[in-house]
């Protein structure tokens, strides 16, 4: 979706302003929001793509005025409501008002180390050979889906070169919406800055994205 998350090339946000000796967390609630996001995700009722889509579906004004852990916490509320774990009244009351969806599993403290060490690999076998090979010239698809996609606006309809075939991966555009993993080959695709940004772009800059096969057409 052309949402607030699609930031590449936007202007007006001011300096990067890296903080010297930045602490890992800026408030205790950030720790809880981070841990809760992982622990609730471990119940197994939504995937990382649906999580990302919940975050980017926040109202742009909300997204841009929220810190990243705020975005996580707000999206977590959306996911918990969507999947029937929590009712809006409960969020207002700050306490449970009854049973909701029963979780497939609950992450216990003793299983955290193993769960984090395992992660969530999303490479998958894909039937058939990759459509593209390293060195192939491609043009990226031009589309503006309202649904989740991982092809940023700045890289749509652009000429690029396949640099590497990365293997098969879960397709976020369908997986985010409960429509299955439908794995596709992923490719690292390189563009020149002038191809993306046009007049005045630095010819010594290249930008790459990792693109699912259906984002690409031969050129």
């Amino acid at each position, binding site marked *: 979706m052309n949402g607030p998350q699609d930031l590449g090339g936007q202007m007006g946000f001011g300096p*990067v302003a*890296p903080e010297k000796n930045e602490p890992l967390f800026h408030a205790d609630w950030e720790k809880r929001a981070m841990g809760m996001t992982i622990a609730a995700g471990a119940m197994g009722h939504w995937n990382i793509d649906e999580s990302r889509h919940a975050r980017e579906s926040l109202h742009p004004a909300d997204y841009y005025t929220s810190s990243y852990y705020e975005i996580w916490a707000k999206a977590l509320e959306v996911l918990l409501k969507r999947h029937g774990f*929590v009712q809006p009244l409960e969020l207002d009351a700050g306490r449970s008002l009854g049973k909701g969806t029963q979780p497939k599993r*609950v992450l216990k*403290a003793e299983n955290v180390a193993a769960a984090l060490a395992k992660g969530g690999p999303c490479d998958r076998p894909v039937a058939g050979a990759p459509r593209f090979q390293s060195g192939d010239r491609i043009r990226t698809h031009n589309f503006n889906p309202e649904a989740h996609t991982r092809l940023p606006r700045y890289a749509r309809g652009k000429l690029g070169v396949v640099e590497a075939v990365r293997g098969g991966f879960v397709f976020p555009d369908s997986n985010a919406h409960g429509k299955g993993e439908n794995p596709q080959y992923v490719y690292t695709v390189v563009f020149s800055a002038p191809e993306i940004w046009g007049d005045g772009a*630095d010819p010594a800059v290249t930008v790459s*994205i990792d693109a699912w096969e259906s984002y690409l057409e031969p050129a």
Partner: protein
Amino acid sequence: MPHDHDDHHHDNELDPMAARVRALETILTEKGLIDPQAIDAIVDTYETKVGPRNGARVVAKAWSDPEYADWLRRDATAAIESLRYTGRQGEHMQAVFNTPDTHNLVVCTLCSCYPWSVLGLPPVWYKSPPYRSKAVIDPRGVLTEFDLVLPETTRIRVWDSTAELRYLVVPMRPEGSEGMSEEQLARLVTRDSMIGTGLALVPEAA
């Protein structure tokens, strides 16, 4: 009197996000959906176990051992796993090597993708709109904000982490580091040098 109860987190109590997150944790705990101690364990993992020292050891080994560097280039996931750095947001790793001609810079314009297994949790600036918007259109300008000015002839390659591959930049080994042990070398490898917003530190002149 502003402090009229005994909660030492008083300042956070007044913050709307702190209240909101605490309410959510209360609800989820009451419903048995989360184990608060699991959250403690997750936080502890990233506060004390998984952070940029992991990545620094990978880089130091690559600087010291050409065979390891070659393995890292070909199969970063396996090469990094051999040092026991595995797991969440490091399942599919790529290592990209800076050279005298080309400097690599990593960003996630669409969210906050970052190689947790080797760098830990990302800093705020990495996840925020200024960096995410600018890194792809004006990488040189971004680097100057980190006091890094590269020659105009140095090519810059920006890696936008749009899929599940996670990128670790291997900075160039600094001059004057000849003969240093891996442990000493690792101390020269900053987090930012592994994102591409910095270079490795130069050893102080003996």
